[in-house]
Each structure stands twice: as structure tokens, then as C-alpha cells.
């Protein structure tokens, strides 16, 4: 217990204050102050801790906002070189992993199917005894299976298996990018993942890489991509997506090319061939490749892939002309049997275009260097199945969910003692004999090194909530009890290890979130080992008339690990806009052929006989011969929010590997048959077309001139102008209605749709900041979702082919100066504040819902249930989830209308803070939660009364593409949108 005292947080006090801030009826009878005042906590003022996100291997830096000792929000760390102050939705939802009501609270032992609590000492003694016995029984009888890890603490765990004479030490990730690593070994001689500089690329050619969703380091990718792929002084990068399914990442694409499944690598080689032909000078590497590339001419490949030869040649010309450019791929969903070949082809593309060292550079070491392949897991399972493994410890991985078929459970059952170090009772943990629960990352110490030069510290932001113990400490203790020593002298805990590693720099590293240095990239030379691969179209199992199954990584749930977090379940999938469910994306023509409509339940049967039953989502973004099913749901265990929602496409896969040892995700043609029955999709999509309303606008780059908005002409029709004129007369010609004089601020926002990728990070930030309840699938079906900001997604153009665009727009309260909601409120709950906000006073609201009916933007949300009351049936914050609530924001009760107020609590906090310090509120001192986190930097917030403010600058700089939504309604919104600029496409809107 002593080591937990470092934070000096009185848990009782935290809990007391927590109870005080939520649950409207239950007024606590007592104030429970701290027994001794913690130095770093002022009640009512947040304390921030710099740490590192461990939700995926990317290793982004985070700042954890705590109030009275409990984390309430996570924001990006501006000092961190990976994510530069930004954070994705998954990173922010780490809070809900910490406060998961179904966490394992203490060590437990399984008897049959029943779990019984045991003490830490009992548990450790039992495991240590078994470990000792296994080591004396022979070599390789102990296995340690973890997720991706890096840094000094992770390295010490290698000594653990060595100490017990075993080589079974595997770092397993479901998304492990083995094809790319293997291709890099074959082409460049290093089995590692490079850094991709999307910010420097003038042309991005992606072969199925979902680089804005899950691919390698999505937040870092998005920061660079949004900067390059929006209009700026140096032009605007073009992005061409070559993939069989257009997902959220490819929504930002200027052009979508959908080759026949399994021929992506041939398309890449044909483009490379065409580029190489154009390289007139004799460049050593290019010359070496000419002979290899010769067979892949655009006409041959056109026949194989269905991509017209002129398209291949045109892309090649553009790709070569834009220097530096960048080719990336494959993404996990598109790992066919030829995945390594595709990765090799992508490397060759980057070589012939001269991108190596410019947009593709190799750090000296990366977190991925030590991650095993799917084949390594299969080999370990074979050893387990043969009964040669006596003790297996699993930490940070859930292979029972992500291993195809039922092979894992069968082999794992042969292990004599199975120990889970998981914080959650997931599928793998429930197969184990013992659970020794780990701390959550927000309770832990660690040093994470995602790549050379980036050493991010992980420090606790809260005292452990449950009787858990950090797995590093457990491993050290187990070794010690078995008479081994794996840690340096004097080190028994992760905290001591971090302190020892950091040495004198500890304080600085804890304050800054780590130590960051710039290191030189490794030089790269072209190797020739790839030539022994067979470059033929990938084959698929199953009947030829089946649909090719794409199991797609979920941008919210990742490989399924996000499914226990209600935010990630309820924030709609950026592409399908569906929540809480598993769906099967089927092209409209295929759906018509099979007689399927939205919500129809289908039986998807894999060649191996396995079936799942998702609901159909008719979607033009997949090829006619493809069915796409998202990964992430279909859990049998993993807590109340994950279990029994949706279905798991891993069931449909067989454990096939490609030449890199990767799981072939895209391996089978499946049969899709109507099962009978239908359930409504829990979707937030209203219409997929804008019907000429001009909500989200696209401008072809050719039409974007300095005077574009004038040329575009008047948006309003004659009758609209007349009507507005009449209204203004009746309002006393107050053109500036709703705009107050200085010194009041006028808070405004601009949202650059050229930067917005629709990722949903802003939505997660809004949930965290504003205590927005999650309502569950049944309520979403009734359109009762509560998210104050949503990403609307519309298709533009003829979606029967591939030549169409996606228009996305974050829609939140527009803070209209001439707001339709305000005059209809009978009790003045909706009113205009002097600083230009549409205030919404919850305690005044009587729930007439007139305001929502009169809102043209549909951004007001009504509490149909008492989501905030612990005794109500729809309580949204069960168990410790209540500790996440922001005490600065009222938890709304039943019958109350709520909506975005530009994070007015953040504004008031900053204003009060400035006043108390006697300083002026500077531009940038206050920003909304959505703008703070947006990895694209699409949202700019500030005071429009301040001439030099960022929001004014952004409006002026891009005046030619600035517009307000529904201008004809004369609402005078406070949000200005900047049209999205595309390299192709129409301006239909």
C-alpha cells in the first residue's frame, strides 16, 4: 500500500466529492475533506498529469485531467512528437476502460465456471510454484504471451521466460503488419516499420491502408495528412485510394479505384512499371528494377485487375510528377494471400518515385520490431496443443477473440496452468485458471518507446481503484518467489524501474511526458530478396460465386479491445454510421440481386462452414463482389457493454498465413443468404444524400479561385432574399441582432471541411467534457442518441460506379445570432448570452421541445430518460463510470433539453481564471473540447470581436470557400464552414 501513497490522494475524499457532483437527488450528508492536504491538488481546480496512451501501440502522449484525484478527461500532450497535442477517440475512451464497471477487482481463481476470490499472496505462490515445477520439468514449458510492448520494463519481461528456461515469449497483436515488415526485410534488409511522413507527401497512393483509422499510427498520420491534403500555399496533396472497400480513410480520397480483389499488388507494380519507364536518367535503384517490373505493363494488369490501363498510366504520371509522393499499404482488411507482394510493390513504388528518405524513413528501432507474427502464435498454440507447455501467462492480448475459428480454446485448454494478467474478464481470461488483474495504464508506471528518439513515460493519474497489481511487479514477484531474479538489484516495482531508468531526469520526464530527441533515419539500400515471391493474383477459398469477405478493422473498436467502452460503441462508425451492432456492407446492386434490404438478417457462411448472422447495410462503398464486416463486436465475454452485441467476423476466417506469417484477413469467398427476419439498424444516418441543401460543400480545385465565393454567386433565391428582408424589417433592421457590443466576446468557430476526415475524435471529446450519456442501441434506433456533435456523411455523385465523393460535416449547435430556438421557448431556457452563445439553462427547461422542433440543424437533444440517476432504469454511468463525470457540468435529468454551448464551462473557467490573475483572456487561452482534440486541426475557435484572433484569421484567409449552413433561413450562425476542396468530382451538394 505504501507505494500507492505517492499521489497523496485521499480516496475517500475523491469518492465523496464524486458523489456530490452527480446524481441529482442523492445529496450527500457529509463533506469529507482530505485528512492531509495533498500538495498538488486544489479542490475545484484540475490537476494534469503527463503520461502515454496505451490503447494501441502508436504511443501517443497524453495529458490526463484529474479533479480531486480522479481522471475525468484525456487530451493530447502538445510536447509529444507523435501526436502533438491531439488524440483520437480510442485514446480518449481509455477513461472508460479505467472505470469499466466489469473490471476484475481482485485476484480470482476458477473452479469449473465459477470464479472465487483469492489473495495476492495465494495467487502468486500458486503460480510461482507451478513455474518452478515447469522449469525443472524441462525447457520451453513456460509461455508468456503479451501485447505489443517497448521500453526498458518490457525488455525485462524477456528475462522472465529466460529465467524459466523457455523461449516461448510472444508479443502478439491482431493487427501486426507482418507483410509490411517482411517486405521491408526483402526490399530494404530491415524487418521494421518505417515512419510515413504524410505531411510532406504531395501525392498519397494508398493500397487499402486505413491510415486515418487504425493503421500503425493514425493520429500522427492524420495530423500530417490533413495539413498536406488541404489547400495551402504549396498547393494541395492528392490522395488516391486503391481498395475494394471505401472506408472512412478513403472518404478523404480524391479518387477511388476498386480493383478486383487480390490484384492490388499487380496494380501497384503496373504503376511502378509505368513510373520507371518515365525515369529517363539512369538511377541505380530504378535501373535495377526495370527488368523485374517489365512483365507488369498496364495492359496486362488491366486485364487482371479490371482497372483501365489509362488510369494506371495517368496515376503513374501524377505520382511521379508530385515529388515527394508516398505509397502506403496494405491495410489489415486487405491482407490477401499476396499481402507481402503488395507491400513489396508499395516499396518499389516508393523507390522508383524517389520517396525513400523523404516521406519514408526508418527509425533505428520501433515498437513493431519485437512484435511476433500470426504464425508465431500458431506455433505457440501447436506447442500448447501438444501438451508441452505447463504454465502460460497472458497479458494485454485477447487471442481467444481474435484467433480464427476455435483452434485457440482447444490448444489453450491443454496448458496445465493458464494465468491471465488482464484487467478484464475477456474471452482469453475466462479460459484461464487464475486472473491476476493488472492496473489500468492510468494507474501504472512504464516507459514506452514507440520508436527511437521517443521515450514516453507512463505515470499513474489515480490511485488504483481496485485490488489490482501492475503486471511488471507481478512478474518480478513471481520470479523472486521461484528463486529467480529478473530485475536489476533493488528493483521490485515498475515505479522503481522507471525511477532507476530515468535517473536524475525523472522529474523533467514526468512533467513533460517523456524524453524526446531527434535521431537520424537509418540509411536504406535496395535488396533483391523479393524476386523469389510469386506475383500472381491472390487466390480465395470458397465457391467462385461467393462474395469476397473483408473483415475490416474498426476505427472505434480497433481489434475488439474497444468494445467494453460505451462511448466507442455509441459513437457511430464513421463509414456506416451504425452503433452497437455488427453489419454486413453489401453493394446496392448485389443486395438487389440477393433480395436484401437494410436491416435484413443474413447468414454469412464461410468455406470452413462457420457462420455469423449480421444485418445488411446496403452501401455503395464496396465492390459488387465484396461483403465487408467490421471487426470488434461479437464478444462472448468482456463485460456488459461488449458481451452479446453483434457478431465476430474472425469466426469466418481460417488460420491461413501468407508468406510473411500474417493472418490472411481477405481469404474467403463467403455465401450470403437471407436468413429471414430483420432488425432495425441502430444508425444515426438520416439521408445519405444532401438533396441540394448544400450542407457540406465540395469545390473542385480547378474552380477554387481567390474570388470563388463571388463567382459562385448568390446562394439565396429571390423569394428567400425577399423573405429575409421582410423579417429584418420586422426585427427593426437589426442586421446585427444577437451580436452584443464590446467588451463582450463573440464566440465563433470555423470548421475546415478540407481538413475534416470524419474520424470522430471530436465526438469522443464532447462526450468526455460534457457528461453526455450513452443511451444504448434501442434508444439509438428511436433516434434518441445524445451526442451533441455528430459527423454527417453524404454521398455526392453517381454512386453506381467509383467516381463519387463523400461530403462530411461535423454538425453541432451553430450558436445562431438570430436563433430559431430562442423565441419559441416559453420559459426562456433557450436564450442568447451576451457573448454570442445560445445558452441552454437546464434547470429552467420544462421540456416542451419547441426549441428542438424549431431548430433547422437538429442539434438539440432531449432527455427521454433519467440517464444520470443511479436508480433509474436507463442509468448511463454504472459502477465507477460515474467517477469520469466532469464536475463542472450539470448532469441533466429527465425531461430536459440539452445541446452544445461551445463548452461554456471551459469559457467561464478561463474567464474566471484570467480575472483572478488580473490578466486579459488571450486568443487561444480557451478552446472547446472538440477543437482541442481534432487531429486534423479542422476546428478553430475564438473571439470574433478580436481582430487578430485565429478564428477571424481563418475566416479571412479562406474567405473564398467560407459559407454558413442554411443561409437562406437567416439564422446568422456562429459557425463558418470552409468548403472541402477536391481534385476531382462534382459540385452537386
Amino acid at each position: 500500500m505504501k507505494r500507492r501513497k505517492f499521489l497523496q490522494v485521499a480516496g475517500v475524499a475523491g469518492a465523496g466529492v464524486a458523489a456530490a457532483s452527480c446524481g441529482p437527488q442523492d445529496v450527500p450528508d457529509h463533506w469529507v475533506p482530505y485528512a492531509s492536504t495533498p500538495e498538488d491538488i486544489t479542490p475545484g481546480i484540475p490537476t494534469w498529469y503527463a503520461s502515454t496512451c496505451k490503447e494501441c501501440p502508436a504511443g501517443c502522449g497524453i495529458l490526463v485531467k484529474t479533479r480531486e484525484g480522479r481522471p475525468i478527461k484525456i487530451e493530447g500532450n502538445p510536447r509529444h512528437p507523435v501526436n502533438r497535442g491531439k488524440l483520437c477517440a480510442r485514446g480518449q475512451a481509455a477513461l472508460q476502460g479505467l472505470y469499466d464497471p466489469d473490471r476484475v477487482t481482485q485476484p480470482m481463481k476458477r473452479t469449473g465456471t465459477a470464479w472465487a476470490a483469492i489473495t495476492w499472496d495465494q495467487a502468486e505462490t500458486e503460480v510461482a510454484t507451478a513455474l518452478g515445477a515447469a522449469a525443472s520439468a524441462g525447457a520451453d514449458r513456460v509461455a508468456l504471451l503479451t501485447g505489443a510492448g517497448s521500453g526498458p520494463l518490457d525488455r525485462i519481461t524477456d528475462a522472465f521466460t529466460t529465467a524459466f528456461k523457455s523461449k516461448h515469449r510472444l508479443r502478439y497483436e491482431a493487427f501486426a503488419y507482418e507483410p509490411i515488415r517482411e517486405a521491408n526485410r526483402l526490399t530494404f534488409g530491415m524487418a521494421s516499420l518505417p515512419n510515413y511522413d504524410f505531411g510532406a507527401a504531395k501525392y498519397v497512393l494508398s493500397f487499402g491502408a486505413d491510415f486515418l483509422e487504425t493503421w500503425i499510427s493514425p493520429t500522427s498520420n492524420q495530423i500530417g495528412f490533413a495539413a498536406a491534403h488541404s489547400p495551402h500555399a504549396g498547393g494541395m496533396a492528392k490522395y488516391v485510394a486503391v481498395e475494394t472497400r471505401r472506408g472512412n480513410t478513403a472518404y478523404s480520397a480524391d479518387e477511388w479505384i476498386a480493383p478486383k480483389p487480390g490484384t492490388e499488388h499487380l496494380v501497384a507494380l503496373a504503376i511502378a512499371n509505368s513510373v520507371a519507364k518515365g525515369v529517363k536518367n539512369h538511377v541505380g535503384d530504378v535501373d535495377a528494377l526495370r527488368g523485374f517490373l517489365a512483365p507488369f505493363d498496364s495492359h496486362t494488369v488491366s486485364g487482371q485487375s479490371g482497372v483501365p490501363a489509362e488510369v494506371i498510366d495517368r496515376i503513374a504520371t501524377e505520382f511521379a510528377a508530385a515529388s515527394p509522393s508516398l505509397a502506403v499499404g496494405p491495410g489489415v482488411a486487405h491482407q490477401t494471400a499476396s499481402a507481402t507482394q503488395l507491400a513489396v510493390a508499395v516499396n518499389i513504388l516508393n523507390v522508383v518515385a524517389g520517396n525513400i528518405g523523404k516521406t519514408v524513413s526508418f527509425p533505428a528501432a520501433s515498437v513493431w520490431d519485437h512484435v511476433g507474427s500470426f504464425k508465431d502464435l500458431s506455433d505457440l498454440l501447436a506447442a500448447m496443443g501438444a501438451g508441452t507447455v505447463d504454465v502460460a501467462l497472458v497479458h494485454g492480448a485477447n487471442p481467444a477473440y481474435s484467433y480464427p475459428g476455435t483452434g485457440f480454446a482447444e490448444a489453450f485448454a491443454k496448458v496445465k496452468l493458464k494465468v491471465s494478467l488482464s484487467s478484464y474478464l475477456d474471452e482469453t481470461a475466462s479460459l484461464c485458471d487464475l486472473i491476476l488483474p493488472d492496473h489500468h495504464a492510468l494507474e501504472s508506471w512504464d516507459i514506452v518507446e514507440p520508436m527511437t528518439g521517443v521515450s514516453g513515460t507512463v505515470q499513474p493519474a489515480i490511485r488504483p481503484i481496485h485490488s489490482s497489481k501492475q503486471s511488471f511487479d507481478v512478474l518480478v514477484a513471481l520470479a523472486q518467489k521461484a528463486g529467480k531474479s529478473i530485475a536489476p538489484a533493488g528493483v521490485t516495482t515498475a515505479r522503481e524501474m522507471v525511477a532507476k531508468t530515468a535517473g536524475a531526469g525523472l522529474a523533467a520526464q514526468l512533467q513533460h511526458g517523456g524524453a524526446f530527441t531527434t535521431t537520424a533515419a537509418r540509411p536504406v539500400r535496395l535488396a533483391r530478396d523479393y524476386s523469389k515471391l510469386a506475383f500472381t493474383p491472390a487466390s480465395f477459398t470458397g465457391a467462385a460465386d461467393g462474395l469476397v469477405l473483408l473483415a475490416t478493422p474498426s476505427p472505434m473498436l480497433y481489434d475488439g479491445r474497444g468494445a467494453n467502452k460505451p462511448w466507442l460503441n455509441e459513437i457511430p462508425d464513421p463509414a456506416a454510421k451504425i452503433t452497437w451492432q455488427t453489419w454486413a456492407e453489401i453493394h446496392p446492386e448485389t443486395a438487389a440481386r440477393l433480395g436484401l434490404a437494410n436491416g435484413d438478417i443474413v447468414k454469412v457462411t464461410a468455406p470452413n462452414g462457420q457462420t455469423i448472422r449480421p444485418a445488411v447495410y446496403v452501401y455503395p462503398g464496396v465492390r459488387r463482389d465484396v461483403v465487408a464486416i467490421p471487426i470488434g463486436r461479437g464478444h462472448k465475454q468482456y463485460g456488459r457493454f461488449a458481451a452479446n452485441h453483434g457478431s465476430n467476423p474472425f469466426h469466418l476466417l481460417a488460420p491461413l498465413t501468407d508468406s510473411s506469417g500474417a493472418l490472411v484477413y481477405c481469404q474467403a469467398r463467403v455465401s450470403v443468404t437471407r436468413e429471414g427476419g430483420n432488425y432495425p439498424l441502430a444508425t444515426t444516418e438520416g439521408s445519405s444524400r444532401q438533396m441540394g441543401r448544400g450542407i457540406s460543400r465540395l469545390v473542385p480545385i480547378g474552380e477554387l479561385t481567390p474570388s470563388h465565393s463571388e463567382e459562385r454567386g448568390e446562394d439565396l433565391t429571390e423569394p428567400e432574399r425577399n423573405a429575409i428582408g421582410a423579417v429584418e424589417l420586422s426585427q427593426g433592421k437589426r442586421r446585427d441582432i444577437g451580436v452584443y457590443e464590446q467588451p463582450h466576446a463573440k464566440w465563433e468557430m470555423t470548421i475546415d471541411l478540407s481538413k475534416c476526415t470524419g474520424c470522430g475524435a471530436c465526438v469522443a471529446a464532447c462526450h468526455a467534457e460534457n457528461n453526455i450519456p450513452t443511451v444504448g442501441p434501442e434508444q439509438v434506433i428511436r433516434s434518441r442518441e445524445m451526442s451533441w456533435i455528430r459527423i454527417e456523411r453524404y454521398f455526392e455523385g453517381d454512386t453506381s460506379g467509383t467516381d463519387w465523393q463523400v461530403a462530411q460535416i461535423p454538425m453541432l449547435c451553430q450558436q445562431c445570432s438570430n436563433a430559431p430556438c430562442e423565441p419559441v421557448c416559453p420559459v426562456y431556457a433557450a436564450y442568447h448570452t451576451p457573448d454570442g452563445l445560445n445558452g441552454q439553462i437546464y434547470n429552467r427547461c420544462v421540456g416542451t421541445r419547441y426549441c428542438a422542433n424549431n431548430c433547422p440543424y437538429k442539434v438539440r437533444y432531449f432527455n427521454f430518460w433519467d440517464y444520470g440517476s443511479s436508480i433509474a432504469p436507463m442509468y448511463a454511468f454504472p459502477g465507477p463510470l460515474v467517477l469520469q463525470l466532469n464536475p463542472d457540468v450539470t448532469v441533466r435529468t429527465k425531461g430536459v433539453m440539452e445541446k452544445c454551448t461551445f463548452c461554456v464551462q471551459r469559457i467561464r473557467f478561463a474567464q474566471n481564471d484570467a480575472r483572478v490573475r488580473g490578466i486579459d483572456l488571450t486568443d487561444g487561452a480557451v478552446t472547446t473540447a472538440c477543437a482541442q482534440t481534432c487531429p486534423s486541426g479542422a476546428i478553430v475557435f475564438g473571439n470574433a470581436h478580436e481582430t487578430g484572433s485565429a478564428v477571424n484569421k481563418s475566416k479571412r484567409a479562406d474567405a473564398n470557400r467560407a459559407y454558413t449552413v442554411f443561409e437562406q433561413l437567416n439564422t446568422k450562425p456562429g459557425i463558418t464552414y470552409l468548403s472541402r476542396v477536391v481534385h476531382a468530382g462534382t459540385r452537386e451538394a
Partner: protein
Amino acid sequence: MTRNRVTIAGGIVLGLGAILAGVSLARGQSAAGDTSKQTASDTAHAADTTGPVRWTFPGTAMSGAGYSDISHARPNGPWPTLPGRLKGPVQPIFYRHDIHAGQYKIPCLYCHNNAANSWTANIPSVQTCIGCHLVISAADTAGKPYPDIAKLRGYNDSAQSIPWARVYKISEHAHFPHMRHVNAGVPCQTCHGNVQQLARVFPVNDVNNMGFCTDCHMKRGVTRDCTACHF
């Protein structure tokens, strides 16, 4: 005809209701009429209208149920006499503001220091109490330990928090920035009453009555924007 009857009946009901309401209102006033309400707001009103207001120790002492007489209290003198009747919730330790703030004139912010820089005015930790009581008033002159100091030391020895009964609770839909008010020179007594005369603290003002807030805000000409407090 029927309609008229209904109307008349309704009128009678309404009238009766009004009378009853009036009676209960009057009663409420006289019940709270031990002047606490009026005097507290008088203090604020007397403090005048514009600009920051400097608090001066109120010249007129409160009297009535719950108030101690501290007019003759001197440091190291005898403790103020307890009033005939104590009001407010019973606390785990009989902490007397009339001794600390009244007799010894310890500033409010000595213990409630966060009121100057945070939204919440903190309740002091045991550490704060023991900072003085390690040496002060452990026992009376006869060497007999004071029972409440002994309790305090008990909490300190076991590192336990003191579960104080809550006196003021502002509704959760309102957010009160203590630091703005303290920094503007609004005396604590404006809302909390003459705490320095209270042997046991009781809610002198109904801080959840929004009129109590807006009265003062209008007199001072400061913000009346709803979202200043409600969000």
C-alpha cells in the same frame, strides 16, 4: 349555468389557496424572522452598489437563536457564552467558529484558503487543524483534555478524514466561483452570515434561492447572464 358554478367553485378554491399560501408565507417569514435573513442581506446592501466592496467587521452583532455574543470576547479570555439554543446540524467535532473566527479573529481564508483561488472553498484538512492544535488547547488548565481536541487528535493519529455534516449545498445545476467573489472583496458573511458568532454553523441564508444571488448582482451591476452560473 353549470359552467358558472364550476367557475365560482374554482375561484373559491383558488382564493382559499391564496389565503393559505399567504399564511404559510407569513409564517415562514416570522419563523426565519430571527432576523438572520434580513440582517445578512442588509450587510450586503449596506455595502453599497458599485465597485469592489471591502468588508469591515460588522459593527452590530447578531442576536437570537444560534448566535453567541462575542462583544466582550478577548483572545485568551473566557470563551464566548453559548447561545441558549444551537441551530444547524450536529458536527462530529464541536468546532466553534465563534471562538476561532470571533474571539481569536482567525481570518476565514486561513483555513478555507481555496476560496481565494478555486471554485470551491475547501473544508480544511485534519492537517490544517492539527497544525495549531498540536500545541494549542490540548488540555485545560487543570490538565484535563478537551474532549473535542482529543477527538481531533484521534482523527489525526489514524489519518482519517472528519465527516463534517454539510451545511450549505448549492444545487448541482449552478456553479458558484468562490474565487471571483472573494477577489471582488465580497465578504464571506454576505452569503454565510455572521459565522464569527456561530458556535455551530447553520444555514443563515438560502443560497439556493436564486433571488438571493441576483439581488446582489443587480445592486452591484455585475453579470446577470444565466450561463455565468448555469451550465
